[in-house]
């Protein structure tokens, strides 16, 4: 985590032109960053096609979709910074192309050339090694043009994960404002506090709609462990009733999929709900999060 604090990962958030509206939920495109945050218990959901196996949905690749709570948790703990892009991106690309298209093309050509040279070198070396293994002393001069042509046609043009074009845009500085928009658009602060509390108890959360909850919580990396709990949306349990049907449904389903059905809620201290700000959250010790679990006893 300390390493991440020194070099926080970049989370992309695309917002509208006036920055008053979040257009896309938080995304990460860099595999190294994805690996780094996984080590501190933020898994997100990969959602892009894996070029290696394009006809299945189990193993996917970048981009990583983050739950809003995950993104905010990373930010508050200093492990991530938001890189906010004002849209519409297509028109910004157009502007960029109008002024610098020649230069951009040159840049990409150079990059491609470099990559081709490296690939050629590598392939030739491989070829020579292979020949040596077979006991044939390869003469580079003979038939070189032929094999070169072969190598030429097998060169790989890669589509990169992360953007070069967007480096040309001036980046907007980030305030807590964007976080408020994210929360307003996709979740609630109470849900975030539940997330935070569970994360601090070393649970790893992932989206829980398929089990009828807000999160499902794993005791460790979901790659290796079963999840233990289905966590419901935060309940203001001092004021809100629990629906009997929901209680039965949640507990029944939870029991059949071997998970505990958990209701969490925040007891608000002296503070009004509305003055939740990032600063307050950082200092926050007043909000008291409690969890209740329901199990189908099957008694009698």
């Amino acid at each position, binding site marked *: 985590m300390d390493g991440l604090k020194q070099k926080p990962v970049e989370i992309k958030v695309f917002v509208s032109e006036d920055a008053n509206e979040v*257009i896309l939920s938080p995304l990460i495109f860099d595999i190294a960053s994805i690996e780094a945050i996984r080590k501190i218990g933020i898994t997100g959901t990969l959602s892009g096609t894996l*070029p290696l196996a394009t*006809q*299945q*949905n189990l193993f996917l690749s970048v981009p990583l*979709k983050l739950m809003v709570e995950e993104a905010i948790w990373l930010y508050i703990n200093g492990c991530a910074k938001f890189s906010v892009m004002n*849209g519409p991106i297509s028109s910004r*690309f157009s502007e960029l192309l109008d002024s610098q298209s020649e230069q951009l093309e040159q840049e990409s050509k150079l990059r491609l050339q470099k990559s081709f040279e490296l690939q050629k070198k590598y392939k030739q070396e491989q070829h020579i090694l292979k020949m040596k293994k077979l006991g044939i002393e390869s003469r580079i001069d003979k038939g070189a043009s032929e094999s070169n042509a072969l190598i030429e046609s097998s060169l790989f043009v890669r589509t990169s994960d992360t953007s070069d074009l967007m480096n040309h845009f001036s980046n907007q500085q980030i305030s807590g404002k964007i976080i408020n928009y994210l929360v307003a658009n996709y979740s609630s602060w109470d849900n975030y506090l539940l997330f935070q509390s569970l994360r601090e108890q070393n649970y790893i959360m992932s989206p829980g709609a398929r089990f009828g909850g807000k999160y499902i919580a794993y005791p460790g990396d979901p790659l290796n462990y079963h999840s233990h709990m289905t966590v419901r949306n935060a309940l203001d349990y001092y004021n809100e009733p629990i629906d009997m049907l929901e209680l039965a449904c949640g507990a029944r389903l939870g029991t059949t999929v071997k998970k505990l059905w958990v209701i969490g809620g925040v007891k608000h201290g002296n503070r009004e709900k509305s003055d939740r700000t990032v600063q307050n959250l950082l200092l926050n010790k007043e909000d008291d999060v409690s969890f209740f679990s329901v199990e189908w006893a099957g008694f009698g």
Partner: protein
Amino acid sequence: MSKVKQLEEEPVNSDLEEDEIANDWSEIAKLSATKYAAVLPKRGEKEYEPDGTNIQELLVYRARRAMFDALTHSPRGAVLKSQIKAYYLPDIHKAILPNPKGNFMQTMGYADSSGALYLQFYEFVYLAERGTITPYIHSGSISVEYRDIPLSVEDMYALFNSQNELDNYSVYSHLKRLGFIVQATDMSTSAKASFFPTSVKKARLNVTPQIYSHLTSFFKTHSLTFFNHIFYTPYIDAFKRNIGAIPLYKSLNKLITCYDVPKTIEAIRKEHSTERSRETEQFLRIAFDVWKPQVNFKKKSPELPDFQVVVYNKNIASQHFPNYSDFKTIFNSLDYKFDFLKIPDDVDSNEVEWWDSNTYNEGIPRYMYLASTKSKHSKKPSSQQDIKIERKMKRQKPKKSISPRLQQMRDLKNGYRSFLLAVMDNGIISFVKIVEADFGSQNVWYSPKQNKKK
């Protein structure tokens, strides 16, 4: 170490739940060394909870290593020889392929007179993501020479206009990866088949049908309640004593008014035409037409889709789960292969022909439409495989006659009009099938007479 070995040797139990089975990235990582993924790797098993042992930590470490090895060693792109270039055009939010080739052309994109292929944005991102095409961006007129300014995956995602579009794309690519043929309904450029004679719905939707439906529905309910109250209620007791339970319950049927689910061609068409032009919210429109994989897909004039999909993101605060009237609107705007319709026995055609004569392209019956387009473009000689398939279809003629009782149970179970609701939760999609069931008018009484006949 023994633990590792045991884990590796344990056969995978296919009965385990989705979540119970870990995604074993180590198997897919091996694929990066070999050439092509023919079979999906089996998945490993999970443990209950961390117990603080080194062996577990090693297992986690290995699992992660495998996962990220697979990710980093799976580059996107194509070799120079088979590279297909696609240029994104910001002005129309589509991509153009000046020199198109490849299998995907059978089901995707549309060509212009110059032979260039246009791809919808979903198609563009999907193909680029799997490495089939190389994405570039081109600004300005399409007649200007293209510059090769490459787009990255990140750039392409940045070009999504809204969360809605991104969600739709996730559903789109999920279905595409499964092998379905998918077209977005709002961007369709093809002359899609329709179940309804006039596709110009708005023109027909003037005041009369609405008033008509209001009137009829008024009379229906009124007559029912009026009639029942006066004549039935006082006699219920008498019925009970003298005639037995069956007539009583039959009459109860009339007391409780219920929505009559459309089951026939006429009913579906009528229901569709009386649908008020109430605009559903953008997010609750039918987003995709989905076809099962097929050889003879006609990109320009596809037949009725097999499924229709509505996408709903459960996390967006401004959206709500569809309520009853939303559902009704969706049901009435459905236009797919209503698979519950029974082909009448006296029709001497196979299923394909029957559907062709009961669907419409641009307002004219599909079989006529197809014939007219065929004369323009001489039909490609069908391959051996196609002929085989056609023969097969013709051969599977004899329909099994099912007992009416079994048929009734089936109808009750499967329901009638249906669509798929894709519930989106941060990249995890749950597909829910929503069906109109008809429990209101089905009479499931055991009647001795019928039984005796048998």
